[in-house]
């Protein structure tokens, strides 16, 4: 339980120099059983560390598994796994799950507003925290096999979610136009956005620009 709470805070001191270094150290300290192990873990895990926050649990479990047996393998394993988990975790959680649930939640919120928060929050929190806990437990149990299993699972889910998301965008498109009423505003905004959103930062510029254009139109008319 202490390790789970430490993992919830794994990023709270995130910095450009150490990444999640201190957070991962705190999680490893929570997993250390004896004062000697605690001292050894503290000496060893104060360095730079960075991975996807939800998959840090799996890596902490794997590292603690080998710390309790043969700690010579840990450095090599963590070095190899943190960047791989960083990219596959970011791809699944940030590129698919968050946008996917956002599309679903907004679509349903246009039918019934109260659905939106629950449809986003419940699956997102449940899935991310389950991955955190189950990855930790499985890593403690079977070591690097847990990382292999987690990686395979994320790849399989990612492939299925792409199709589901394409479907949901269609639902949202029609629903947005029917709900928002003035389709003459949804369509130009979507068209300009499609060409303008080549870089994700442009979302803010485009919102400002659209509001400004609407303001000018209102003043002129």
């Amino acid at each position: 339980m202490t390790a789970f709470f430490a993992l919830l805070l794994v990023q709270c001191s995130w910095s450009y120099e150490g990444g999640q270094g201190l957070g991962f150290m705190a999680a490893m300290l929570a997993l250390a059983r004896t004062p000697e192990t605690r001292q050894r873990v503290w000496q060893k895990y104060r360095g730079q560390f960075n991975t996807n926050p939800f998959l840090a649990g799996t890596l902490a479990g794997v590292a603690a598994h080998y710390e309790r047996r043969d700690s010579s393998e840990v450095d090599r394993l963590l070095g190899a796994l943190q960047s791989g988990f960083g990219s596959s975790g970011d791809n699944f959680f940030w590129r698919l799950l968050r946008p996917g649930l956002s599309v679903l939640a907004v679509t349903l919120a246009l039918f019934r507003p109260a659905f939106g928060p629950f449809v986003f929050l419940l699956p997102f929190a449940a899935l991310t925290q389950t991955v955190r806990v189950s990855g930790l437990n499985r890593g403690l149990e079977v070591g690097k096999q847990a990382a292999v299993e987690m990686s395979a699972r994320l790849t399989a889910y990612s492939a299925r979610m792409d199709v589901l998301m394409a479907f949901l965008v269609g639902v949202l498109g029609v629903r947005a136009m029917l709900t928002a009423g003035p389709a003459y505003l949804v369509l130009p905004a979507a068209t300009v956005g499609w060409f303008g959103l080549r870089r994700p930062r442009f979302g803010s510029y485009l919102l400002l620009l659209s509001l400004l254009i609407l303001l000018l139109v209102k003043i002129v008319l």
Partner: protein
Amino acid sequence: MALFIIGACLAGGLLLLDRWQVGEFGLSQPIVACPLLGLLYGDLGTGFYFGAALQLVWVAALPLGRAQSLDYQGAGVVAVVAHTFLTRVLKPGPDGDGKVVFACLVMASVASFIGAQLDIWNKQANGHLYRRGAKAGSPSRSTGWHLAGLATGFLRGAVLTGAFLGLAALAARPLLLLPRFTRTELLALALGLGLAGAARMFVSLRRLHWTAFGGAVAGLLWVFLRQ
């Protein structure tokens, strides 16, 4: 009003810890944070409105690796808090509500940039904590420096919320000069941009038939539900 400002800064600071410092449960996402703040201030409808409008605008802004993403969570918090503040100060009535919503959406988009810059400063400040934590004399001291990150994170959210309340106070009177807007028009703009972001991310020629199928299902559902 002083109590409202202090409360809003506290609520903003706490909610925005979920952005990356604590748990990342999704509480700070606009679709959740806006209704939560709406509930707190007794205007759930406005919370739902800003949540649905803002959640998708930054759908393509991905916090991948070490890249700094825009602070769309901060944007949601700023929108609801500024709306509550302006409504209490101006008491705009149904005619002026659109003007307040317009101003809040402008502030939300600016807040996404300012929040991102505050994020960078927050991470730089955490660099000091990291250096001290790595050189500390015991495990508990290292952990203490690590947990100090909660304070810098909270401060970041509180400062962002407070700064935009200040801006809202300055903009309160001039925004009454704006032309009239309806909530539906503003929602349509935000949804259009969100739709573009989602389409850019998920629709490709290979999966276009799935998107068309989704659109057909939504259309049929609409016809069916209307009868």
